């Protein structure tokens, strides 16, 4: 165990996700597989975490991904990140593997690897209780895995505060492969900024913007789950595992957000200086889910449980959310593979003999709950589904790969036929394999005046969700912005990802400059965002061998049009997609034929060594 200053990585890679992934790139060789001891598991806070900057509550966990074999990166909120900063650390890098189950106890400068045998096998809820009890402080912050991570389930996540997940990419399984059950932190130090008065001026402006913002105000009241009917009409809901992108309005009525608010919501919740507090705590008092009390659920539950399985019983949604948190399962990935199994069952590809007699009928929440358990413990069919839909389909064949919805091997929760072209492009080209937080955005459906469009994104107007025009530009903007946000540790809901009136790259540059004393403007900060994005891209090219063919949407979204609802008949077209993808590569200065990065692009970003690595591997485009 040793410490080293982060100065050698910053400001070139800022902090958080940027530094995490540079370390990952530098230290993990392409031949290393995700569960080998030589893989790294890296926790990163963020430059602004621990200060009063709004929404600076995030941490990122990174490793080589068991889902894609490329970059594995997931971001979460909670008090963990700030606590780690108060203890005096920006990052934790784990390498190797403990001989016995262990947990790391960081008490300011006292850092010990503790025996974790007694918590191995426990759920995340139990682990949280036991560790706090034995360390004698219930305000310690804990990041831990559940049974799913221990059992190397590829959809395992890393949980903090019992409810917040660094979800995608199977990072919980990497943690499990290191026999690391938890990281417990207590920090009592102070965070100083370079220019306190100037910093607070920026902070005050930012808080005021968030206070009056319409987007923030709505999210403050409702959280992320607010308008299921609009999601449905706009093609975001993949019904019965994406067989259609429209759910019966009767189902949507039964899960009206008002029902959750009126009957189950206990309170709103937020973490480290969050001016929104989109999270809520729920309690179910009776029925089959009586006794469930948990933080969550989110709009993801609408996509993952309500639409995918047509479950319209509100307590079940809360219950399934809680089960995922308890097992340490990323609900997006886990429910993706389970959805694929339901469709296989519907088509007769798998039968009662494969499911141990469990009937997989749409709408049956008990079957979903049972399969979540089987996945977490790799029991029966759960062992297959623990690999994710892509690998499961490859294992059983029989044409099931045709409808396995994944991007680069990771299950996808996003419908892409009618939900917006920037949304689809962002989800597909995302470095971590699918997911809508690395370039995808919803601004394309908003009404934004042209001067604002020009100022923020450099385009004259937004053409509506179904147009292919200018979408690559929007995606590239948000790839860069998201890389910055994750490296500063700021929540995307505080940024113009959530609404054009919220924080943009200039605002973040001012906060960064005042906090660190390193002067940088918004444009320069976006270059850092591009650099971070390019590191991840290079990691993918070297480790997973991704090319242009991996930047294609799931076939279903090009071949099967939406069957019902206002967007009936809509699908992605090959022509539109290719045009958009060409434009996207051009904006990055990447090669259109291979999708690879050019030497000039990398050298302009001060990444010559990366260009050399790609050249040696024969993965730089060959120009005539």
């Amino acid at each position, binding site marked *: 165990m040793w410490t080293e200053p982060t100065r050698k990585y910053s400001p070139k890679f800022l902090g958080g996700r940027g530094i995490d992934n540079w370390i990952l790139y530098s230290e993990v060789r392409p031949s290393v597989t995700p569960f080998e001891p030589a893989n790294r598991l890296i926790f990163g806070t963020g430059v602004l975490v621990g200060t*009063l900057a709004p929404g600076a509550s995030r941490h990122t966990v990174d490793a080589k991904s068991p889902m894609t074999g490329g970059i594995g990166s997931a971001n979460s909120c909670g008090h963990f990140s700030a606590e780690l900063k108060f203890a005096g650390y920006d990052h934790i890098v784990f390498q190797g593997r403990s001989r016995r189950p262990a947990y790391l106890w960081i008490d300011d400068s006292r850092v010990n690897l503790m025996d974790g045998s007694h918590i191995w096998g426990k759920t995340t809820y139990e682990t949280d209780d036991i560790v706090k009890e034995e360390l004698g402080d219930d305000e310690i912050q804990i990041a831990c895995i559940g049974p799913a991570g221990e059992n190397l389930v590829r959809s395992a996540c890393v949980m903090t505060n019992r409810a917040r997940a660094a979800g995608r990419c199977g990072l919980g399984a990497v943690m499990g492969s290191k026999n690391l059950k938890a990281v417990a932190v207590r920090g009592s130090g102070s965070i100083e*900024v370079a220019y306190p008065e100037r910093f607070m001026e920026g902070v005050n402006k930012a808080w005021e913007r968030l206070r009056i913002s319409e987007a923030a105000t709505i999210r403050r009241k409702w959280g992320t789950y607010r308008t299921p009917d609009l999601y449905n009409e706009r093609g975001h809901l993949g019904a019965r595992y994406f067989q259609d992108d429209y759910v019966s309005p009767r189902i949507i009525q039964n899960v009206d957000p008002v029902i959750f608010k009126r009957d189950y919501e206990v309170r*709103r919740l937020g973490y480290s*200086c*969050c001016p929104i*507090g989109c999270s809520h705590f729920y309690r179910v008092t009776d029925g089959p889910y009586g006794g469930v*009390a948990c933080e969550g659920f989110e709009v993801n539950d609408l996509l993952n449980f309500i639409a995918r399985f047509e479950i319209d019983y509100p307590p079940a949604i809360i219950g399934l959310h809680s089960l995922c948190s308890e097992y340490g399962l990323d609900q997006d990935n886990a429910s993706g593979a389970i959805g694929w199994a339901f469709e296989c069952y519907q088509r007769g590809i798998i039968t009662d003999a494969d499911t141990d007699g469990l009937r997989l009928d749409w709408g049956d929440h008990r079957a979903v709950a049972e399969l979540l358990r089987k996945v977490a413990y790799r029991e029966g069919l759960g062992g297959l589904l623990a690999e994710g839909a892509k690998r499961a389909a490859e294992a059983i064949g029989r044409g099931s790969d045709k409808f396995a919805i994944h991007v680069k091997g990771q299950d996808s929760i996003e419908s892409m036929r009618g939900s917006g072209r920037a949304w689809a492009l962002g989800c597909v080209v995302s470095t971590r394999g699918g997911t809508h937080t690395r370039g995808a955005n919803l601004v394309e459906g908003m009404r934004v005046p042209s001067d604002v469009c020009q100022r923020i994104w450099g385009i004259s107007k937004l053409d509506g969700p179904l147009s292919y025009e200018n979408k690559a530009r929007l995606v590239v903007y948000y790839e860069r912005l998201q890389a910055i946000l994750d490296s500063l540790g700021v929540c995307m809901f505080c940024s113009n990802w959530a609404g054009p009136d919220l924080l943009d790259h200039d605002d973040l540059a001012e906060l960064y400059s005042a906090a660190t004393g390193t002067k940088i403007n918004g444009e320069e900060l976006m270059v850092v965002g591009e650099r971070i994005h390019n590191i991840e891209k290079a990691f993918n090219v070297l480790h997973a061998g991704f090319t242009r063919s991996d930047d294609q949407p799931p076939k279903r979204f090009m071949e099967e049009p939406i069957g019902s609802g206002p967007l009936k008949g809509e699908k992605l077209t090959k022509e539109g997609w290719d045009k958009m993808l060409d434009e996207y590569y051009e904006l990055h200065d990447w090669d259109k034929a291979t999708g690879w990065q050019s030497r000039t692009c990398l050298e302009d970003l001060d990444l010559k060594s990366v260009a050399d690595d790609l050249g040696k591997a024969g993965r730089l485009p060959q120009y005539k």
Partner: protein
Amino acid sequence: MIYLSVYDEKCTGCRACEFACSYHHRKVFNPRLASLHIRRNEKQGAISILPWAKLTKKEKEKRLPCDRCLGEPEPLCVKYCLPGAIVKKVGEL
């Protein structure tokens, strides 16, 4: 006189009040120095706001006493509490 009214049920547990309080005292961010404490029970979804008057003697020893944000136009814990869980009142207690 100025006093603070607190409403636990409105608090989201974001602790911006603690961060702001430590900034008022020392121009640094450190919730453990703050004159108030937010306690969170994650199992029950319960939160308690403990202003200076409600802190135990032991807790007060580690923290800096509340001066009602002397020199500030309004107490910073109130200013940054967007949910309105900490409210400034003027008058006799």
